[in-house]
């Protein structure tokens, strides 16, 4: 995470996400998948092909791509289908876009009710016998049962969570890095899924995105760094209020 300053002098914290060897693996049509839209399987980081069985490696062999650590599913409209085997780059996103980021949260293990659900617990003194971090009452007398989904101690973390509506401030095309506003679930160097935002306020945010994706061997030659309009770039003179 890094600080970033706008032209008006405000500071924002930014998370760096690296796009590491992403390839499209397979196209599943609407009828095959049984959903409302067709799906594209996309694979992430490259790992060694020797520790998995042959059947699992079939998908990668078809696409002609080394084995990936993570395979995710993206729902795509019919006009955005990409041929399996094409690499995906950070330039697929543009600065000024809004993005949802999904990842597995940091696993905290078996945790008590105060850390997991934020219960207040009991006072430290004034006669409390062996009760300082316990949940207290779990239901009423009339209910005569404990409701399903009651907040109780258990395994915390290590589940998929999404942060919605994060602005993309800057894109580095040379190293494939996306600078995304705010924090992102997951530990450092964990695998993360980045999608266009589904929030209704940001529905019309993408002005001219590369559609269906950014092709490196195409005609467009992008500069090494793409900045949002409001970012203070370090080549500019210092900010003054006239």
């Amino acid at each position, binding site marked *: 995470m890094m*600080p970033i300053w706008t032209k008006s002098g405000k500071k924002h914290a930014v998370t760096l996400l690296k796009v590491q060897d992403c390839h499209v693996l397979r196209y599943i049509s609407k009828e095959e998948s049984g959903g409302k839209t067709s799906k594209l399987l996309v694979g992430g980081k490259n790992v060694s092909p020797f520790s998995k069985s042959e059947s699992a490696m079939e998908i990668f062999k078809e696409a002609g791509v080394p084995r990936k650590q993570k395979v995710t599913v993206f729902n795509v409209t019919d006009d955005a289908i990409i041929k399996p085997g094409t690499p995906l780059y950070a330039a697929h996103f543009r600065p000024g876009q809004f993005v949802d980021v999904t990842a597995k949260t940091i696993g905290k293990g078996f945790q008590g009710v105060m850390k997991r659900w934020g219960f207040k617990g009991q006072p430290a003194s004034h006669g409390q016998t062996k009760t300082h971090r316990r949940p207290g009452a779990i239901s009423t007398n009339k209910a005569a049962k404990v409701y399903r989904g009651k907040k109780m101690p258990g395994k915390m973390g290590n589940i998929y969570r999404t942060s919605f509506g994060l602005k993309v401030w800057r894109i580095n095309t040379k190293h494939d890095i996306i600078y995304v506003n705010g924090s992102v679930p997951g530990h*450092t*160097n964990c695998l993360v899924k980045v999608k266009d935002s589904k929030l209704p306020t940001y529905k019309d945010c993408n002005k001219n995105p590369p559609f269906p994706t950014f092709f490196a061997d195409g005609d467009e030659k992008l500069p090494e760094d793409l900045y949002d309009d409001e970012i203070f770039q370090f080549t500019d*003179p*210092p*900010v003054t209020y006239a």
Partner: protein
Amino acid sequence: RINSDGKPAKFQPPPKPVIIDKQKQREERRFLSPEFIPPRGRTDPLKFYIERKDMIQRRKVFNIPEFYVGSVLAVTTANPYANEKASRFVGICIQRGGKGLGATFVLRNVIEDQGVEICYELYNPRIQAIEVLKLEKRLDDNLMYLRDALPEYSTFDMNMKPVSRLDHEEIPVNKLQVRMKPKPWSKRWERPKYNIKGIKFELPEKKMKEAQKWSQPWLEFDMLREYDTSKIEEKIWKEVSEELKK
């Protein structure tokens, strides 16, 4: 020339002149700002490389001088609510924290009997100028104890003139022992955890001995806490100096 013997004298070449190369002496002293050194952790070195590129970009446009904890600085920042849209603050640097672009330094001064500490970010674009009025080191890396010292040690004149010094001289270490206000202090500075050498403790012997109860003499031998930065520093120094020369 003929000697007294009558034979011709052997040719004695003139003594070689001793050349003192002052530039070499100057280059021997390398200063790498502490925010360039990456902290110990599991982050990808690529992140530090990209952050360093940004930091070097900023340093090319705006000069961030060399300074240490204990030197007196004057900082002018852009302020929309000030009269001339720029506010100037003079103070002694008591702490340098943070790594990378978020590096900060805290300046302390006593203005009209009120102690004021301002924490500035080195790479904040609103900073117009940083001038070093007095470049010196102190006996400690962290001068937070000045809050409990007598106010005369933290007062600096707002219109102080910069103290001139020659380029190749070594940075002077001010071995000042500061006198403190009576206890209670904000932190127990006499404890060995803070390892302060710059205070003249006027506490009774009994209190000083009691403070040594909290000493942890095994800490300096703990190998897992060692973080040898010499090789990393050399690499980064080379990279940074090459980039800045361009």
